[in-house]
């Protein structure tokens, strides 16, 4: 399943990059991400609880940042395995600063879901994925505003 989108973050590219790659910020903003524990360079052990409303699945896995160029781009590689199956995402993120207070975040990636959820939720999957992405960037925008106010 393709997961693409462009989102605006009210911050410059460097700040946006820092926010998007900061594990503490990610735990606060990424829907369902419960914890990140560093196990190496840009490599984390993750606990996830992905879902919507009452429908949720628990997953344990890893989050990795690759191909990163500060302020420009990175690749987010996530995977989790749990009783319901697995979730995986491989997303390339490119930042395009449009003004000193605005950065466009281009996301292009693949997500896949396996196991029970794949069979049951197929008809809602891409809708859910874009909803979760929307939630993530909404939270991210709040973080960006917070960062701005703090600075």
């Amino acid at each position: 399943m393709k997961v693409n989108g462009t989102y605006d973050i009210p911050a410059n590219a460097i700040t946006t990059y820092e926010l998007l790659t900061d594990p503490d910020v990610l735990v606060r903003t990424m829907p369902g991400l419960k914890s990140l524990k560093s196990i190496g360079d840009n490599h984390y052990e993750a606990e996830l609880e992905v879902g919507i409303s009452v429908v949720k699945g628990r997953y344990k896995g890893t989050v990795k940042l690759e191909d990163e160029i500060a302020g420009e781009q990175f690749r987010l590689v996530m995977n989790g395995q749990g009783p319901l199956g697995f979730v995986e995402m491989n997303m390339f993120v490119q930042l395009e600063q449009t003004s000193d207070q605005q950065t466009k975040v281009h996301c292009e990636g693949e997500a896949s879901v396996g196991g029970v959820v794949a069979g049951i939720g197929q008809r809602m999957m891409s809708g859910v994925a874009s909803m979760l992405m929307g939630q993530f960037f909404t939270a991210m925008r709040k973080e960006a505003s917070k960062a701005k106010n703090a600075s």
Partner: protein
Amino acid sequence: MTSVTESKWVGRSIRRREDPRLLVGAGKYIADYSIPGMAYLHVVRSTHGHARILNIDISKAEDYPGVVAVITGQEVADAMKPMLVSSIIPNLGGELQIPTVYPLAIDKVQWVGDPIVAIIAESKYIAEDAAQLVEIEYEKLPVLTDPEEAMKPDAPKIYDNWKDNMLWKGQLASGDVDKAFKEADYVLSERFYGHRTGAAPMETRGAVASYDEFTGLTIHVNTQRPHILRMAISQIMSMPYDKVRVIAPKDVGGAFGTKAPIYREELLISYIAMKLRRPVKWVENRMESLMTIGQERDQIHYLELAVTKEGKIIGLRDRLIADSGDGRIGVYLGFVMPWLGAAYLSNAYDIPNVQIDVSCVVTNKPSLTPSRAFGEFPGRFAMDYAMHLVARELKLDPRDVFEKNIIKQFPHVTATGITHDSGDYEGAFRTLIEALDYDRVRQEQAEARKNGRLIGVGFAMGAEMSGLGSQIFVPMENQPGYGAATVKIDTHGMIQVFEGDSPQGQGHETTLSQVVADELGVTMDDIYISYGDTFVTPFASGTLGNRGASYTFSAAVLACRKLRPKIQQIAAHLLGVESDGNDFTFANKEIVWKKDPSKKIALRDIADAAILGPTKLPRGMEAGLEATAYFEADIAGMLSIGVHGAVVEVNPDTGDFKILRYVVVDDCGVPINPMIVRGQVHGGVVMGMGNARFEKYAFDEAGQPLSTTLMEYHMPSAADVPDIEVIEYNVPTPYTPLGSKGKGEGIPGPVPATLASAITDALNIPGFKILNLPITPESIWRSINEAKVPT
């Protein structure tokens, strides 16, 4: 061979004897079995389409209260041979690569649903609780979901030790095909695709196994072939034959082929019962079922027909590519269905020059498992719809093209070696054309068109196997094709019939009683039928492929006929008359001397003499009244014809269509119970409609199954299907004692071509064609657009 007794029961639409228990809720299906001390098995399955198993952590599951045992693959494998032992491997020549398989995956999974861990617990709820605690680490491998991709030389290999992904490759050919194509006036060449769909019976699989060291293993399992399963378990687990008893329940909730293979779970539960010395029960849930069984069809046909300008097909060439899935099921290995589909491809038509190259390819999907219309479904669609396309191309009436090609002389051996025993295919076809009122529909069509309504008529045929004789069955499945039955008259003059097969809703208790009642001049109430228990029934291959009315019932007839001379000798002796052993009639539970009907004796009295009072028997006569017979037809194959026709109306804006009429002309030789035959036809047509229109086992590119509930796998309900008209056109076969032939297996086959040709006829758009199944409103709409804008 004809029946010597007056037919009183055969041929009548008698209410079924099995129904009262089923109607009051007293049927006993596998899920209704329970044994004191029974534990429950739940299987943890792969969530990946193709992956290496790096680690399995079962510790938390083992510690969960109520868990009896948690078992992984290596342990089970150590206790048995690789499952695909030679007796459950086909012998069809060609090139076969045999996968190694054990009940549970050990280091690699090949499809989503591949069993990995067995959890045994005190309740089924607890077993699922513990399943949630099993942690499996995988390393993903490339997933193959497209057989044509899997065939490419650089494709990743699914089985590391194979030379490629080709499970089986072979050719069926005869005649001079090249010459035929050279001489043809017209060559039709198309790629047809029949998607992955199948049977999905209402009852899933299930088993209850128990073991003790004295009686051995007893497994109740809703299999279609208890004897073959017993043989397989004994060989795979190296257990003495007398220590393996397979019992199929009296009531099985449908099978349609899906319960015919030897499955991994059957070996798994046997092992667990032995290990734990406790009865264990497993009932497959629907999600597992939709991920594992009943997935069939899934063939690509690159079909070419060499045709004369008059519409006579003189040559057929086909490249058949089947997506066999992982191929790891016993007996069929995921390739016997496409093989038979190829053998039956030329259907009811006389085509002298044929060459079919069959490639059965492994992919990361579950193995193909048999489903009603065994292997034939996509081929019937391709062949019969292609004939309509030929007619359109040559501007001929499709009726004439069909008539020109239908087999007219019997017996007929096709170029692929299939023997059509007898029948009147042409007469059946004409009966359909009449029933459809073909010429009038054509007029109505023209009228309707003026009012903007698009009506169309279509038809297709299906020559379906009516059992397979040993000449085919031995190479195909390594098993005998004969029917087997024991008929035993008990101390009370009642008749117990033991059949080697084991039905799943076909109504054998009724039809077999009808047959035997006629043979022995008794009523159906005097007969009781036993099946399913391998310790008491004669060896046979199981209830599948229309064997019943062809083979098994014929065996029962022969067994009765073996008994009749002895009964007459006893009667003559007791009545004090002279007899040559064939001068009595059997009627009203009495044996009546033809020369003087006042001289008669009750069957019960004969039984009494033969069993309880052997001193009354003629001197030297052996006591007892029982006989076992094995029936083999004196011909390689019996087939029976079904001709389907439909009138449809299509909405060209959306591609939606409505079936206005659906008619089937059907031949089953001599119908033992016409009502039951009609039921088979209705059910077969609706399964065909479900498969052709609504049902699809869909996978994403990672091999994730997307139709794992009945909300996504769309089996039709009563509101989704039309009325079905059935017209009998029966031609008794000379090759069975009663002239009867089995019915049911092949009925879904002609449905897709029938609908596709009717839709094509209704639309009347040059270039419009339906080449892919399923036929959905969207696919029709797409084809309309493609035809309108030629690429």
